């Protein structure tokens, strides 16, 4: 049985080794510092309330055309989306409830691309790799912007 001092020495050696072998990549650290300026201010948050991946308990085999279903809820607005395809062919199809015309901005890092939801609240467009969040703002006067939780696919 060794004592705490031996453990501390071994730990310090291991700590040094891991810092050497597997440090946080510098580009990620820089991006994390930058993402502060991408945050939205004065938006309501739509929280993730459903994720098809979290529901199927590992029994389904993943296929290339297997769609990911996600639902986000904010007070007064639900955003349901389906993400399918991989790489260049990845697309997002969404539905706002209650149905309404809206401007939907897809946020991916510093990039923002705008889509229009039609009068039935439907929208669709291409989606890049990497974490994304949607910012939705109804065109009706007085609509508050809603941002969804960020999610990595």
């Amino acid at each position: 049985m060794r004592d705490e001092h031996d453990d501390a020495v071994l730990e310090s050696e291991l700590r040094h080794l891991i810092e050497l072998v597997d440090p946080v990549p510098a580009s990620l650290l820089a991006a994390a510092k930058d993402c502060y300026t991408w945050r939205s201010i004065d938006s309501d948050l739509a929280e993730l309330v459903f994720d098809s991946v979290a529901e199927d308990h590992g029994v389904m085999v993943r296929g290339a055309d297997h769609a990911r279903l996600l639902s986000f809820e904010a007070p007064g607005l639900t955003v349901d989306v389906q993400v399918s395809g991989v790489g260049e062919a990845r697309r997002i199809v969404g539905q706002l409830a209650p149905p309404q015309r809206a401007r939907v901005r897809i946020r991916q890092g510093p990039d923002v691309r705008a889509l229009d939801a039609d009068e039935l609240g439907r929208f669709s467009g291409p989606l890049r790799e990497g974490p994304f969040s949607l910012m939705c703002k109804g065109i009706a006067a007085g609509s508050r912007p809603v941002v969804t939780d960020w999610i990595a696919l």
Partner: protein
Amino acid sequence: MEQGETRKLVEAAAEGDEAAWRAIVERFSGLVWAVARGFRLGQSDAGDVYQTVWLRLAENLRRIQNPDQLGAWLATTARRESLRMVRGRRRDVPIEDAALTELLPVDESSPEFAALEAEQARLAAHRAKQMWRAFRELPGRCQQLLRILMATHRPSYAEAAAALDVPVGSIGPTRARCLNQLRRRIGEVSEAGSQPHTKKRDNQEDGRAGRA
């Protein structure tokens, strides 16, 4: 850093102080990365988890219920997003099995070993390789716990418990057991000489210890 200091940084960042945000990222970056890597995610997937956690925090700065416990919030968020990533990537593999697959290469031509070759001062390259091999042979749960506890800012047991979703009281005893196993394996690989990483005979015992 005092807990009160973390609270002040969170409050300042929520009010628009970018320097406070950067200080938060500097402090907890290693923890978030360690949690994602501890779940056996590769560089790309771990990178997506890492980014998602920081984006979530940026969006939630005003909504953090207990800023003193920010580390635990980050660890919990990183765990959930890592599991989501594991499930999305490998739905045909049960999570426990996925946790046993390799995290980092043990291949001597890998960049990790190249980094080890460059290291001469504090830790001899030979010793470093033996230790890395021994670490990589530990049961998955031990690697995960030690990986998290070794993160740069020295996470608290509460943060490690949040990262692993286990009781805080289990962290200390598991840490001690895992360090003992590591010490024993370092002894074994140095005795075994040139072909050390084929030993698996301790796995049964390790499996029990790892679940504590």
